[in-house]
């Protein structure tokens, strides 16, 4: 257990709890764009900055990726914290000025978004889809492209591997900006520009899941494919 002081409240938490979780326990509002309680913290959006004190001096830290340590002091509303959140918001806005999720987040930290011409659905590289695909679905169909010496890419993008994707659509569900789109019609589903064939429910005939997805489930669970072709509401 680690004893911490967060905005004046003393609390004892199990090791490994993040500062963000600690704050939420105390109803301390901290803005986030890339955080999801069921996924590994990623620290992309930098909106959840707080100040922590572990070795005598206050330092800014991303609350979602910072685990509490015994004796840690945390403040979530200092001038420095506000300033850093506002800068992160400004930078995000400068790159994604029309993305509603970003605009909303900016407002929460007191930064007025610029007047909007059109509504955009940008990829803000929050990594929620990558982590969902990896940790919830377990197929790693999405990854970040790496950048570094000799691997000069103009823009970082999220890389889609059609071969691994099972078309479950969880990435589209978790995407905060609507950038990942998924369309359906009849027995087809389109996602990330890949077309999936849907399987009809043996009972109600509703096209309820992509064949690839059921094959995947069949493979990891050992349940025969034929037993998976009944939709959840008919099971």
């Amino acid at each position, binding site marked *: 257990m680690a004893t911490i002081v967060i905005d004046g409240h003393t609390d004892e938490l199990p090791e490994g709890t993040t500062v963000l979780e600690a704050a939420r326990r105390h109803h301390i509002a901290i803005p986030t764009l890339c955080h999801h309680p069921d996924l590994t913290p990623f620290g992309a959006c*930098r909106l959840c900055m707080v100040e922590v004190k572990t070795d005598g001096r206050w330092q800014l830290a991303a609350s979602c990726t910072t685990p509490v340590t015994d004796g840690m002091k945390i403040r979530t509303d200092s001038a420095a914290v506000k300033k850093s959140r506002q800068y992160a918001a400004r930078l995000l806005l400068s790159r994604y000025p029309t993305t509603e999720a970003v605009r909303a987040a900016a407002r929460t930290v007191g930064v007025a978004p610029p007047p909007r011409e059109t509504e955009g659905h940008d990829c803000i590289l929050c990594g929620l889809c990558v982590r969902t695909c990896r940790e919830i679905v377990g197929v790693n169909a999405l990854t970040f492209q790496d950048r*570094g010496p*000799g691997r000069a890419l103009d823009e970082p993008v999220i890389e889609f591997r059609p071969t691994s994707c099972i078309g479950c659509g969880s990435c589209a569900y978790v995407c905060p900006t609507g950038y990942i789109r998924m369309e359906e019609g009849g027995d087809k589903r389109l996602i990330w520009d890949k077309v999936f064939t849907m399987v009809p429910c043996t009972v109600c005939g509703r096209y309820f899941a992509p064949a690839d997805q059921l094959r995947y489930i069949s493979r990891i669970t050992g349940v025969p494919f034929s037993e998976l072709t009944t939709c959840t509401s008919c099971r």
Partner: protein
Amino acid sequence: METLRFSSWDGTIVDHRQAASPAAAALPALPQVPEGAPVHALMGFNGLVVTDPAADIPALTRRYLTEARKLSCGECAVCMIGIDQLIERLAPEASPLGARGLSELKTLIDQVAVTSKCGYGQSVLFPVRDALSYFTDEFLHPAARPAHSYLSEVTAPCTAACPAHLDIPGYIELIRNDKCPASLELIRERCILPGVIGRACTAPCEAACVRNAFDEPLAIRLLKRAAADYELGHGTALSVPAPERREKVAIIGAGPAGLSAAARLRARGYRVTLFEAMACPGGMAVAGIPPYRLPRDILTHEIDLIRRMGVELIVNAPVETLSMKELASQGFQALFIAVGAHQGIRIGMEGEDTGAAGYLDGVALLRELHLGTPPPPSRKALIVGGGNVAMDCARSCVRRGVKEVEIIYRRSRAEMPARDEELREAQEEGVTIRFLTAPVKLLTADGRVTGVECRAMKLGAPDESGRRRPVPVTGSEFTLATDTLIAAIGQRPLLPRLLDEGLSLTASGTVAVDPVTLMTGVPGVFAGGDCVSGPAILIEAMAMGDRAAESIDCYLRGARPGMPVSFAPVTLAASRGRAFVAPEPAARVPLLDAGRRKASFSEVEGGYSAPEAMKEARRCLRCYRLYVWQTP
């Protein structure tokens, strides 16, 4: 860089711009640029250094930012977008900054430094801030300047510490992004035996890892191994580009240096023949490194990949049988000597040369153990020496059932070259160590070793190696009984016949070569690896193999190899970044338990699973260090 006009290196400001005659102030430790490149100014991760009035700082800054952006991963909101904004606002065509704009940019830089996700973003913009703070006028009132040319280099503390200068943050990031094949490809660019190095390397990179300051270093070696292990399951082939070249190159010694050079040259299309004295290739990797650290199938697999490139391998071709003339007559235009250092060095004690049974040379013992007919196990073994060879001998003896294994070392633990985990694991396996003890006389009876007379030592002043020199304590002699004594205090190369053909040796008995080209006195004959450097680690030998391949290629094409920028004098670990790093210990790998280890030669250390590797890779702070030089 001759006279210093301005420097903000490490944040210490030295400003001689107003001084009538620029004082010959000491330049901060900087990377060495290849000769013949006059430098006006340098912008590096840790500051700005100006040596020439002609330097155009705004231009340098823009160039630096352009280079910096290429390294920004874009995985956090501040670093790349921040750099983009700076590029935009500092562009020549951008609207004038004004004092206010300037200070806004400085605040922006400060914010990026404290809120960035990785070590790169936290440190990369300090020099830009310095430029804005100390060359304000040049930014506020831009003047037309003649165009400069630029030179830029990227390294990292780990990369610089690695003899082969692997792009470590690069391949770690690829692993983190679940791209083991791409990662392995990147590793292979500078390390042709990743599986071997991933197991048997002493990993100087880990010692240099910035994370040492916060918790513990990245498990860089194990990550490399993870990438290699992944490939074992999936399989790849090393490519040879057309067109094939007609020139033939002979390489003597299929050790790490020879194999590396062979692979590189083959990859360039040359026809390569490897001559190996022993029955199988691998050199020290196979003869010196015990299988419990480096399973043979791994080595074989990676050597096979090289052979499949079309490298001809001739084993059981002892050095004695080879001569330059013959090779030349067989049409080899170039020769690379990489015979290693397999000749154990004498301890230099009384009775050493009596050839008494039970007195063994460490490397010879290991060679026998791993390749030939090992001597019958004894009751007790004394090993003399404090290096990894000594450790290997000791641990191998344990595995061969020797009841009592003791190491004698004439200095203390602090000076001992052996790796910590080697020593720890050896002690776990029951090996005992006697520090500050030197053998002075080998005791024998009817041609058999019966014991050794030793003398206690104490530490004196440091010697040229920087380690404290052991000084005998007079009258401290004592005797240790043993039936086996193994000398493992070092090795030197053995190359009888080639010597007669014009090779010259250095004082320390290694082959003398040109430090840049690695060419020996004999044109077309190059040398590298342990036989040049003396006993060193695998990756060092391989790096030399690569360099040799490079200059052999140049030699055959009649070019001269370029000298790379050297970061030797620079401390890369210290950066001006002051952001918070959450402590997170490295992911552990399973070790075979001591009991089972002693019984067998099977691999002691386990590896990471893919998810474990990705988790560990997330700890990397990505400490890329960027340097941009402005030259006329």
